[in-house]
C-alpha cells in the first residue's frame, strides 16, 4: 500500500486530483452547470467570472466540465464495481467448482462475449427510452466478462497450490478457504483489472453519450461535452479541446496505472 505513494504512481495521483477538482469545484464556482448567463453567451476564456468562457447558450464551461467529469467517473466506477462483484463471484465459482459446472459457466460467458453489445444497448435505449440506469445495465452486462475469465484462471491456479491443500487438511471449510485464502491472493490481479475496466467504461459511456444515447440534458458527461464541442468547433475550439483533452488525460492515466498494476501482480 505504501508503494502507492511513490513517484511511480503519478497517473493515479493525476486521476485523484482530477476527481477532487470535479467534486470541489461546483461548490466553489459562482455558476452551476445548468445555469445560463444571459449576459455572456459564447464568452471567451477569462471573461469575468467565466474562467474557460461559456458555451453557445451561456453556460459556464468550467462548471459543466466538472459536472461532466463527475457523471462520467460515477458511471465508470459504479459499472466497474458491478463488474468486479459479478465477475469475481462468477469466475471464482467456476474456477473453484471446476468440471462440468465450470464448462457451462464459461461457455455462457463466451456466448455473451459474442453478442454485439453496442447494438443491444442501442436497442434497449430505443425500446425503454434514454436513462442513466440503462447505460449502467448495458455496460455492466459486458464488462464483467473479462473479470470473470481472469478470476477463474487465477482461482484455478491457486486451487493447486499446497497452502490451499494444507488449509483443507486443517479442516478449514470451503467457503472460509475461498474468503480467507483465495480472494486475498487474487485481490491484486482483480484490482489491476478493475483499473483497466474503468477507462474502458469511460470510453463506452462517452461513445454512447456522443451518439446522443447517454445521459439526458441538462445533466452532462464528458462524451456530451465533446459532442457539443465538436458541433461548434469552428467557432470556439476550446469547447472541444477542453473536454477532449480531459478525456484523453483520464484514459491515458488510468490505463497506464492499470497496466502497471497488472504487471506487478501477474
Amino acid at each position, binding site marked *: 500500500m505504501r508503494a502507492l505513494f511513490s513517484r511511480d504512481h503519478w497517473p493515479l495521483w493525476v486521476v485523484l486530483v482530477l476527481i477532487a477538482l470535479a467534486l470541489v469545484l461546483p461548490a466553489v464556482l459562482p455558476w452551476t452547470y445548468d445555469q445560463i448567463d444571459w449576459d455572456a453567451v459564447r464568452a471567451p476564456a477569462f471573461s469575468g467570472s467565466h474562467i474557460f468562457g461559456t458555451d453557445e447558450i451561456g453556460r459556464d464551461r468550467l462548471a459543466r466540465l466538472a459536472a461532466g467529469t463527475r457523471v462520467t467517473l460515477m458511471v465508470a466506477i459504479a459499472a466497474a464495481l458491478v463488474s468486479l462483484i459479478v465477475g469475481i463471484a462468477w469466475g471464482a465459482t467456476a474456477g473453484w467448482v471446476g468440471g462440468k459446472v465450470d464448462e457451462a459457466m464459461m461457455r455462457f460467458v463466451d456466448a455473451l462475449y459474442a453478442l454485439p453489445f453496442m447494438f443491444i444497448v442501442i436497442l434497449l435505449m430505443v425500446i425503454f427510452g434514454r436513462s442513466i440506469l440503462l447505460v449502467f445495465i448495458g455496460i455492466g452486462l459486458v464488462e464483467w466478462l473479462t473479470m470473470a475469465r481472469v478470476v477463474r484462471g487465477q482461482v484455478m491456479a491457486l486451487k493447486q*497450490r*499446497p*497452502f490451499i*491443500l*494444507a*488449509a*483443507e*487438511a*486443517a*479442516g*478449514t*471449510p*470451503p467457503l472460509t478457504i475461498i474468503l480467507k*485464502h483465495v480472494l*486475498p*491472493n487474487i485481490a491484486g490481479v482483480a484490482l489491476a483489472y478493475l483499473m483497466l475496466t474503468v477507462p474502458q467504461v469511460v470510453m463506452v459511456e462517452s461513445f454512447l453519450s456522443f451518439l446522443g444515447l447517454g445521459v439526458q440534458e441538462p445533466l452532462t458527461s464528458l462524451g456530451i461535452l465533446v459532442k457539443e464541442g465538436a458541433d461548434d468547433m469552428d467557432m470556439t475550439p476550446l469547447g472541444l479541446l477542453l473536454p477532449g483533452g480531459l478525456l484523453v488525460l483520464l484514459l491515458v492515466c488510468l490505463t497506464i496505472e492499470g497496466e502497471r498494476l497488472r504487471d506487478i501482480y501477474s
Partner: protein
Amino acid sequence: MAIQIGGKRLVDGVNITVEAGKCTAIIGASGSGKSLSCLTPFGLTPGEAQGSVKLDGIELIEADAHQMRKARSRLTGFVFQQPLTALTPHLTIGAQLQEAADQAGPQRLSRHELAQKLERVGLSRADERLDQFPHRLSGGERQRVMIAAAIVHRPKLLIADEPTSALDASLRGEIMALLDELRAEQGLAMLLVSHDLASVEGHSDDLIVMDQGKVIESGPSADVIANPQEEYTKRLMAATPRLTEPAPVLPAVGNMLMETEAVTVMFPRPGWRRGKIEAVVDASLTVSEGEAVAIVGGSGSGKSTLGRAIAGIGPLTSGRINWQGEVLPERRARSLAMRSLIQPVFQDPVASLDPQWKVQDIVAEPLKNLRPDLLRTDRDRMVEEALDDVGLGAEYLQRVPNSLSGGQAQRVAIARAIIASPQLLVLDEATSALDPLVGASILELLAKLQQANKLSILLITHDIASARRLCHRIVVLDEGHIVEMGDMAAVIDDPKADSTKRLIAAS
C-alpha cells in the same frame, strides 16, 4: 586454461582451473555464488567480474564485444538447469540444433548430420525428433537436446549449471554418464555446478566447495571427499545421505494404525479426449504406530497422488483407507476428528504457506478448526510451543512467508502439521527442494518429533538414501503400481524390481 575471478563482493577470491578433458565441479548451497562464478565472466549475469579470467588465452574480463562473442559462441557450450525453459518453444529441435551449429561460423549441417548429433546424446528416433517442438519431448529428452546443442559446435569448455537437478532421480545417472562420455570423446573441459554432492561424486576430477561467495575447500575430488579438511565440507559430507553409511537406529514400532486396501485413483484425461489416466492402481499398504514408511518412485509414478488420497486432500476412485478399523472417506467427506489424525507437509515450503498470512495465523489455522474448544490464550501458547518444537523462536510469530528462508518455511509448515497432535504425517518430498544441509536438519527434526510424539510418518520421496535415514519400511511405486515392498535394509540389499534397482543406482 585457467579461470580466475576475484574482487567482487558477492563472490570473492575464487580461483578455478579447468583443464581440457577434465571436469571440475563446484558444490555449494543456493546463494553461495557458484553459478555467478561460472556465468559472470561471460557477461550472462547482471554482475561484473573483476580479476582475471582466461579462456584459451583470451582475457574475458577485458574482452571487447567481438572477443566476448567469440568466447561465448565458439569456445563455450552451456547447459542449464531447466530443460523446460532453456529451449525456444517455437523452434523445432532441428532448427535449434542448426542455430547452435551456426555459432561457430555459418555451416550448413545436413539433416543426416543433425540426426547423428541427436543419436550421439542417446535420443532414439532422431530423424523424427528433428521436426518436433520442445513441448513434445520429456524433461530428460529435452536435457539431451540441450547437451547436443551445447556441444554441436565443438566447444572447448562446457559449463553445466545444475544439469540434472530438475530431472528424475533415475535419469540423473544417465545424463551424468553421457556428459562423462562426451567429455572423454571430444576432450572437452567441463565446469559442473551443483548443490548436490552425491550427483557429482565420481564424475568430477576436481572439486571446489563454495559457501557465501568464498571457496571453502578445493582439490582433487577423491581427496576432498575422502578426507575433508574444513568444518563446512565435513558437515556437507555428513549431510549427504548415502546408502553405504551405517543403518540408523529407529524407534520401536507399535500396533497397526492405518491400512489402505486396493486404493485406486483415476483422473479424466485432459481436454476432450475420452478415457482415464490411472494414477494409482490397487495400492495396499500399512502403517503402524511410530513407524516411518517410505513411498519411493520416479516422477509420475503416482506417489504424491497416493499420499494425497491418504491425507484426504486428493481424490480416491475406489478402495478403502482404514484407520484402526474405521473407514476414512474421500476428501471433503472427512470429519474434523478424522482430519486431525493425518496432516500433510509439502515439497515447496514457500508455496505451502499463504503469502498473505503471518506465521502465527498459519500455524494456528488447524487449531481454529480442529480444536474450536480452545481459548485464544491457549491457542497462542500452543502456537509458540509448536514453533519451539521445530526450532523457531517467538520472534517468527509476526513474520510473513516471503521473509523466511526455505528451511525456515518448511519448519513453519511442519509446526502447522504437528500442532493439532496428528498421529500420521504425510511428507511429500518435504526435503527435496532444500539445500542438503537444510534438508538433513529437517530430516533430523522429523526423527526427533517422531520419537517424542510417537508419530507415524509416510515419507514420499525419490531419494532412497535420505529415506533410509528415517524409515523402517519402503514401498516402491512405478507407474501407479506397487512393485516392491518390504523392510528398508532387505530391499536395498536385494532389490527385485527394475525400477527399484534404478532408484538405488541413482542415489
